């Protein structure tokens, strides 16, 4: 029944992980080779992922029993519409890695490149595994791979301060992983199995009880921490601002989405069992999402450092996605799922562009970067396009999702949240006006800015490519939307509507 590509499911996870294990060995003579090696591994992974997505389109969701054991007997990998997020993830990695080749010249000595690229590959492999696994404990282990590599990637660039931000991230992340393990153990005790489908059936028989509710709450809190939602977002701004720019692009764009995909998986388990009446939880999600949007935008306005501002705007955009999921109406959920990808794309553009500017001039604050557009036209244009799309103005990808989530809000007749969504995001544009004015319409103050030259092509290529993707997806937004729609429609009956 399954096509040839279904065989590649485990290898798409294992390839980056094994690639990482080999990176130090491959790059022992010339540390710089690690960058090209990582890029090659990710390219092959992207090809495998596209094959898997093609298989998904052809035959619908499919699963793969590891070790030949039947599903609940051994571990089962399950590739469904939400795990299709693996393909854009791999593609974004393939675009970001070339940027880091030249960017790292100022960030670290050459001998520390192999472990850096090993961490990047581990991060990618961990995220791919997380999206594909169908086993609860396996989910926990993959989360650990992703989190551990993220903690280190944050601290790789700076000195003491970066280590301190990374440690804060580590403590909060470790506690949230422990909560997830605790919840997994509880479900294991209740249902005797670790396979998600089995657990869902088991829960169906048990019916709702406090243990089931507490396990759900523990999962929810754990994934909220991973997704940096409002009350537990404190670790994100420092971590993402201090990390080197390609790492910030990966963290803000994709690692944060691990929380969202995790939330979706738990939705699938709990709603499959129709165990919990989720109206109350949806409402809580909607409120948390709305508050995250406004709060993230509000804090972003007062930052002077570009990357710190971009980190806060991540919190605001995660608020979008959560608001969309919480609204539980078809359009809102479609908008939210597509925003998972669009936000990764836009945030990667912004962070890489900001990274190139910091790389060339050494400055990070708006007041120092006045008049940069004259000397770095393409990068500033990419920054402008990213700014316009992160706020969700029409010709860009960000608008498509904002439109659908707003539509969903009114469809679920939650009008006030529709208004909050539309105007909450405009808040952040106040910062972007300041940024665009500073870049384009003011005279340079420092001579580094006046004489800055455009970044070399290995850095400028990805930035320009991502910026044009933002525009293209703004107009051709239909492709991801039509892809996600069937998945959402067959998941919605679960949604506690």
């Amino acid at each position, binding site marked *: 029944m399954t096509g040839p590509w279904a065989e590649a499911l485990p290898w798409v996870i294992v390839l980056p992980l094994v690639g990482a294990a080999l990176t130090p060995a491959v790059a022992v003579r010339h540390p710089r080779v690690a960058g090209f090696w990582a890029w090659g591994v990710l390219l092959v992974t992207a090809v495998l992922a596209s094959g898997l997505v093609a298989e998904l389109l052809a035959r619908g969701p499919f699963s793969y029993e590891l070790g030949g054991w039947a599903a609940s007997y051994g571990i089962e990998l399950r590739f469904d519409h939400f795990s299709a997020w693996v393909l854009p993830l791999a593609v974004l990695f393939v675009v970001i890695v070339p940027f880091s080749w030249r960017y790292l010249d100022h960030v670290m000595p050459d001998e520390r490149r192999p472990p850096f690229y090993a961490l990047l590959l581990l991060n990618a492999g961990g995220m791919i595994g997380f999206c594909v696994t169908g086993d609860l404990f396996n989910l926990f282990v993959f989360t*650990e791979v992703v989190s551990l590599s993220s903690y280190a990637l944050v601290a790789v660039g700076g000195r*003491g301060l970066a280590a*301190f931000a990374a440690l804060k991230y580590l*403590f909060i992340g470790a506690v949230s992983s422990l909560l997830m*393990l605790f919840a997994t153990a509880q479900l294991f005790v209740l249902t005797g199995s670790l396979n998600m489908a089995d657990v869902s059936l088991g829960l169906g028989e048990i019916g709702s009880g406090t243990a089931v509710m507490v396990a759900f709450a523990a999962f929810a809190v754990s994934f909220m921490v991973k997704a940096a939602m409002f009350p537990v977002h404190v670790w994100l701004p420092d971590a993402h601002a201090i990390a080197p720019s390609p790492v910030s692009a990966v963290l803000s764009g994709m690692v944060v989405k691990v929380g969202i995909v995790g939330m979706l998986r738990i939705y699938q388990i709990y709603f499959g069992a129709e165990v919990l009446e989720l109206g109350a939880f949806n409402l809580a999600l909607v409120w948390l999402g709305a508050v995250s949007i406004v709060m993230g935008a509000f804090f972003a306005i007062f930052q002077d450092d570009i990357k710190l501002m971009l980190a806060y705007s991540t919190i605001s955009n995660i608020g979008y996605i959560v608001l969309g999921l919480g609204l539980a109406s078809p359009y809102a959920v479609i908008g939210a799922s597509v925003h998972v990808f669009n936000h990764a794309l836009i945030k990667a553009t912004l962070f890489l562009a900001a990274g190139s500017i910091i790389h060339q001039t050494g400055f990070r604050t708006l007041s120092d970067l006045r008049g940069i557009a004259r000397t770095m036209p393409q990068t500033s244009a990419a920054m402008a396009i990213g700014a316009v799309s992160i706020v969700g103005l029409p010709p860009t990808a960000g608008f498509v999702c904002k439109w659908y989530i707003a539509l969903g809000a009114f469809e679920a007749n939650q009008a006030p949240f529709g208004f909050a969504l539309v105007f909450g995001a405009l808040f952040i544009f106040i910062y972007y006006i300041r940024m665009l004015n500073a870049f384009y319409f003011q005279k340079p103050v420092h001579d580094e800015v006046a004489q800055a030259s455009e970044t070399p092509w290995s850095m400028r290529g990805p930035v320009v490519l991502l910026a044009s993707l933002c525009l293209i997806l703004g107009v051709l937004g239909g492709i991801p939307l039509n892809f996600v729609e069937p998945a959402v429609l067959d998941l919605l009956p679960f949604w506690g509507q």
Partner: protein
Amino acid sequence: MQPFGLDLDYVAVVVLFCVGLYMLVAKSNLLKKLLGLNVMETAVFAFIVTAGMVEGGDPPIMVAGTSAPFASPIPHAMVLTGIVVAVSVTAVALALIVQIHAHFGTIEIDELKELP
């Protein structure tokens, strides 16, 4: 052992978890916070292993000496994996703490806050 409806073994695990959480949250020394984290990890592993135990069960090793009611092997496998995760997290945390100490000269949160 079900005094007033509570399973004491599980409650003990939760108490240990909360002790660890308190250490992590309240202590100002980074190393003590890390120890708190380890206590929490041990608590969760204890929870998993006690869940797998059966009345008068032998270790799940099919050799001469062991008899019928075996403890379930899956929790043990989970805990072994969990311990290795705990080790890795602790290793990275220690590396970061060494880094902070090297740069700032102290690992007390209060002193770190005053530095530039």
